């Protein structure tokens, strides 16, 4: 099927480019690694003191999913910067003038961002293990599924927005404005169970609240409870909606 072969051609090209300049994914890992090293030990103490929503002895399992979300919000969410560069250099138009499927042009790029985030996840989980993360294997494997859904959604959205905004100067501040509240409202640093009601309500309006809760519960070893299922459903639906949105923007005649 040409959609698959077209997508893999684009994927292979983007992947080649990533491998040629691997600096960005490595720099992207730096920030979560700092949180892990400099904030993680504090959380261990906080958990030990007994905090609602932060089970004693589970500090790392609580903390790591938040860092994975952070990795996604600063990786795939900014992936659209590359489409702006491709617009400027004419690469995007050169590809659009071929009969290649419009969706493949998006899908190949989204696949690259997903693979990069999955590789970053392996690295982050390994470092977290060194710091003391211990979790059941199934829970760890579920992390990859959550991460993949997050990467697909954010990357597709970002590429679509890139086509719409078309300039780095507007794109970066726009995404920063979106990323910081999403990050804080998901409760990555402290459990949202500590939040006053108004904050809890706002937090429940953002998808990452459910996703991060689902990921944590999976690491605690509960795979079938409603929290995991809800988290997974929100992740998949968000990814699907973003993908459809991105695909529509990619298939416009005048992009």
């Amino acid at each position, binding site marked *: 099927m040409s959609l698959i072969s*077209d997508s893999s051609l684009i994927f292979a090209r983007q992947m*080649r*480019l990533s491998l040629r300049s691997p600096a960005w994914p490595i720099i992207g890992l730096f920030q979560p690694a700092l949180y892990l090293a400099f904030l993680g030990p504090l959380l261990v103490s906080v958990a030990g003191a007994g905090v609602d929503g932060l089970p004693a002895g589970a500090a790392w399992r609580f903390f790591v999913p938040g860092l994975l979300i952070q990795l996604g919000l600063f990786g795939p969410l900014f992936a659209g910067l590359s489409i702006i560069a491709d617009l400027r*250099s*004419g690469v995007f*138009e050169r*590809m659009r003038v071929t009969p290649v499927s419009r969706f493949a042009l998006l899908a190949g790029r989204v696949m690259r961002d997903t693979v990069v985030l999955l590789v970053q996840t392996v690295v982050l989980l390994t470092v977290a293990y060194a710091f003391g993360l211990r979790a059941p294997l199934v829970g760890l494997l579920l992390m990859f599924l959550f991460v993949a859904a997050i990467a697909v959604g954010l990357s597709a959205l970002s590429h679509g927005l890139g086509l719409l905004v078309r300039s780095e100067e507007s794109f970066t501040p726009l995404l920063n404005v979106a990323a910081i509240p999403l990050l804080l409202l998901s409760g990555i640093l402290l459990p949202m169970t500590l939040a006053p009601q108004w904050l809890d309500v706002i937090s429940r309006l953002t998808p990452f609240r459910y996703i991060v809760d689902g990921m944590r519960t999976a690491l605690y070893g509960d795979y079938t409870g409603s929290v995991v299922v809800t988290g997974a459903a929100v992740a998949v639906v968000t990814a699907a909606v973003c993908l459809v949105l991105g695909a529509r923007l990619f298939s416009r*005649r005048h992009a």
Partner: protein
Amino acid sequence: MPIIQATGLTHTFTVGGRTVEAVRGVDFEVSPGEIIGFLGPNGAGKTTTLRILTTMLKPTSGRATVAGVDVDADPAGVRRRIGYVAQAGGTDGNCRVAEELILQARLYGIGKRDAERRAAELCERLDLTGLADRPIRTLSGGQRRRTDIALGLVHEPQLVFLDEPSVGLDPQSRSDLWTHIRRLRDELGTTVFLTTHYLDEADTLCDRILVMNHGRVIAEGTPDALKRRISGDVVSLTLGGDADRAKAVLAECPGLDEIAVSGQTVRLTARGGEQALVWLMRAADQADLDLRSVNIARPTLDDVFLALTGSSLNENHS
């Protein structure tokens, strides 16, 4: 059958609440095997028209058939049959020449082995052979431009669109590029449609020119026909003897527009310089004029543009 047929094409867009009519009713035809040029200043609507013909932009109204396919009804069909090289080029400096050529061929649905063969052929055709594995950022301007053009040719299109192909190139690279474009037509019969705001490029390279200004085609024809149509050739005759007597004798010749004397030189304009020259020589001979030298100066396309629009293309450009 024309390979391009445009009828009443218009394109209007809105910028900051203001409506811009980039293209306001363009009609023309292009025959297979022509090298045809859209000549006009920046903002004349050349690129917009080109983008409509290459299905990158939907016309506000009007119709266009490209390579026998309606751009609106079957954009993918048009894209399969044409090559398009945008003004910005279309290469990423971190990619390598051959791998991008192979990828582009594969995006046109060409199999892996054929794509590799095409890439090698194109490298040879466009003098890129030694550069196949070089990162594109290390190429010179001319090499990079030839890579852009090779990318537009990977699927052997019968028609290729080049948007401002020689912008930013040094004179040697430009004339080099022109040779390549001409060979493309001569050896493969490819129809080449290019836009340019360089008069010399339109003049040297194109079989036929469509002069565009403010969203309209204001004149079309071969470079020679355009120049002939707008202003006559300037013939200057330098004489050893009495220039005023010569003026009186030569003024009898048919086909002259103006005649004036300055010093020992009689300057006259004629619609067809070569033809007038035959009459002038004969008259000079019969009257036994002491003719020392003759010179015909052709009007340039800039004169044409000036006459058509009231402004010089070069001023307009800067």
